[in-house]
């Protein structure tokens, strides 16, 4: 291995061009004659809804897929990548949305993985560590090279991913939804790092569906819609309205919630404590009240107890101490069924794990709760398929779920349509209380808009809604009050419009605000 040059970039690229890229998957045209180019020293954002073909396009640049038609040029030279190894050799790196790290290995081992060692077959982790320290100093990316990856925070893991690409001498780096898992402050740090990288001559592709981030960091923005180019515009000309209409293909109306008409407290949570999956205490005394006709947004960085709280409320997790009351009825230690009967509906965070059964049909998934209800059975024993089909057809129509048929396995639907169906199922039971956990994560703008509208309608009918979300925009546009959870307790509650993003961001990072 040659001694590393002072600059981290081993092979400088000045431009990458992708021309007329076509990529098909069975039944889907993922990219339809897409053109995209990046130059050294710029951030080029790739914007689009989920399923618009952004990741697919970039995975072709990174050699994970091969295009069916079209060509890729690096500095004007045609290249063909058969695997990521080819792309890495050409100076291209990629930070994946789901981190590509091995949790049981150390930072240095993760970085050295797949690279030749200076000692032939024997690892040279000491040299790797030294080089990692140099890089982390040069790019202000602080990590411990002998820590195990499972010990690191999400922000630290992302730094390891960036270092991995830099260590391989990447000149151009693709970042696939890099901010999805970060706090607002961590996003600021990341953006500072990205700007530093650009000033060093790196070219960056920033894949995102978050408009404000795209506007904040990009020199140019390319929008994809349904696998096709919707256009490329300079970053300084990008406004929210322009970008949204490019993404959706039409204008999207902003939400206009009715004024709050909160009634009596329906859901009361007092001093709630519960253990997490690993036996540590995940909830350390949570107090929240949700009133009829009110949406309370629960903001927080993932892993601060949101999941456990939702599970306790749904009756899926044992409560250690504290109480949960629904309409004055104590439901702290009761079974799931009692919660459902008390009028609680639950839209779980992991819709494919907890909200639906992958291989069941759309219709079967509608009846996960109510298959034994008298209305849909003969004598309470035999399923009444006619009535079931009628009800399912009804819901699919009402909630405009796009599905080929009622018999289609739910796994074949898009994320947005699955979520609409789950919401339809839960709302059709006319709940008094709705727990909606990450209701629009991974859902396209059109469906998100629809789901938000439905939540507001539900609020108007007097349902008490607890909205758990990591998307601050969503929380801020829907909630009457915002509660921030940090390390298992509520660090502060603010009224709508009372706190800025920065203040909420600080609370999410554990800094108690004056409002709290």
């Amino acid at each position, binding site marked *: 291995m040659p001694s590393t040059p002072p600059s981290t970039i081993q092979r400088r690229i000045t431009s990458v061009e992708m021309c007329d890229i076509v990529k098909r998957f069975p039944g889907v045209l993922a990219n339809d004659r897409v053109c995209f180019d990046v130059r050294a020293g710029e951030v080029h954002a790739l914007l689009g809804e989920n399923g618009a073909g952004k990741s697919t396009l970039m995975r072709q640049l990174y050699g994970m897929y091969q295009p069916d038609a079209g060509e890729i040029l690096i500095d004007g030279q045609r290249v063909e990548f058969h695997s990521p190894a080819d792309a890495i050799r050409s100076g291209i790196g990629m930070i994946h949305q789901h981190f590509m790290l*091995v949790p049981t290995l150390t930072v240095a081992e993760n970085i050295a993985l797949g690279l030749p060692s200076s000692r032939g077959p024997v690892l040279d982790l000491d040299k790797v560590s030294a080089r990692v320290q140099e890089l982390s100093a040069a790019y202000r990316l602080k990590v411990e090279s002998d820590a195990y990856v499972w010990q690191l925070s999400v922000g630290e893991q992302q730094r390891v991913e960036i270092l991995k690409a830099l260590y391989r001498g990447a000149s151009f780096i693709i970042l696939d939804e890099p901010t999805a898992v970060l706090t607002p402050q961590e996003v600021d740090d990341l953006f500072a790092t990205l700007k530093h990288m650009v000033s060093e001559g790196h070219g960056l592709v920033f894949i995102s569906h978050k408009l404000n981030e795209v506007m904040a960091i990009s020199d140019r923005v390319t929008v994809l819609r349904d696998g096709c180019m919707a256009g490329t515009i300079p970053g300084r000309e990008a406004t929210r309205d322009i970008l949204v209409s490019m993404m959706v293909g039409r204008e999207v109306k902003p939400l206009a919630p009715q004024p709050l008409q909160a009634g009596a407290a329906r859901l009361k949570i007092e001093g709630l404590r519960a253990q997490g999956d690993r036996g540590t205490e995940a909830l350390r005394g949570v107090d929240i009240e949700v009133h009829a006709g009110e949406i309370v947004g629960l903001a927080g960085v993932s892993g601060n107890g949101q999941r456990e709280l939702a599970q306790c409320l749904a009756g899926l997790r044992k409560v250690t101490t504290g109480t949960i009351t629904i309409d004055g009825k104590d439901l702290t230690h009761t079974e799931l069924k009692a919660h459902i009967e008390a009028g609680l509906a639950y839209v779980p965070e992991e819709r494919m794990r907890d909200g639906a059964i992958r291989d069941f049909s759309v219709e079967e998934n509608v009846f996960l709760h109510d298959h034994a209800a008298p209305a849909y059975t003969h004598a309470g024993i035999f399923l009444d398929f006619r009535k079931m089909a009628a009800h399912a057809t009804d819901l699919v129509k009402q909630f405009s779920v796009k599905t080929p048929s009622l018999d289609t396995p739910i796994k074949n639907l898009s994320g947005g349509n699955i979520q609409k169906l789950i919401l339809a199922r839960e709302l059709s039971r006319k709940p008094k209380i709705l727990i909606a956990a990450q209701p629009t994560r991974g859902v396209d703008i059109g469906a998100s808009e629809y789901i938000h509208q439905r939540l507001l309608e539900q609020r108007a009918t007097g349902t008490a809604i607890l909205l758990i979300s990591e998307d601050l925009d969503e929380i801020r546009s829907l909630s009457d009050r915002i509660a921030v959870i940090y390390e298992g307790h509520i660090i502060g509650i603010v009224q709508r419009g009372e706190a800025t993003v920065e203040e909420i961001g600080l609370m999410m990072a554990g800094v108690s605000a004056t409002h709290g």
Partner: protein
Amino acid sequence: MSEIFSVTVLVGILASAIRLATPYLYAAIGESFAQTSGVVNLGVEGIMLVGAFAGFYVALFTGNLWLGLLAAVIAGILMGLLMSFISVTLRAEQGISGIGLFMFGLGLSSLLFKTTIGTVKTIVGFPPLKIPVLGDIPIPLAWWLLDKTTLGLKTKAVGQNPAAADSLGVSVLRNRYFNVCLGAALAGVAGASLSLSLVNLFQENLTAGMGFIAVALVYFGGWRPLGILAGALLFSTVNAIQLWVQVLGIGIPADIAVMLPYLLTIVALAVTANRARQPAALNKPFERGEN
């Protein structure tokens, strides 16, 4: 009862234990490579049988034990290629493919034995003392390979998060083929250690479940070479005790004594069931872009 505690008997038990540990050790270390890369190979038993036969056949007709050992290794690798093709390339369910491989190995070795040798014959095998020395080699070697080399790092990564390894240009396919075949080669050696050293003969179903115990030992040892060594010694000691119990005719029915190692397998696995170190992608075929 007292004669079992006499010095001669205890030394005897210990010596047989170390000798008997050899096949377990080779087979289990081999299996641990396959599993570390994410492939459960339940066909170890079948590979051992084919290795034992191939080694014995070649040694019997050439008179050269080393040629026999080489034949066992080659037979093992061929079986490993078959297993990799089915479970890695075709992405078949690993447990079922492994059972299939076991039955194939059992049938093939019996058939070839009947058509070529026919009756039980014995040979002069490797002197037993040679094996313990040889038996010590795979442990440090396996540890060194897994923890100190780029190959070991790739193997662990492929078994824990194949998508991550793939994204860095490590070929998951090639790595799994290599580790399954390495494991199968060692299973072949394990088989040959029976037919060329421990019992010096071949008969139908010679291994009688040792290959399955070897798979259990990998779980028992927590996928670490030293843990596997400890497990192999424990099982071979129990095996040795049951042999001596039969020889000495102590008042325990032979059937019960023979049952001991198998009973211990169940107990040990129930007690040590610690899946914390299990390779996260164990038993999961890899396909790019599925996440």
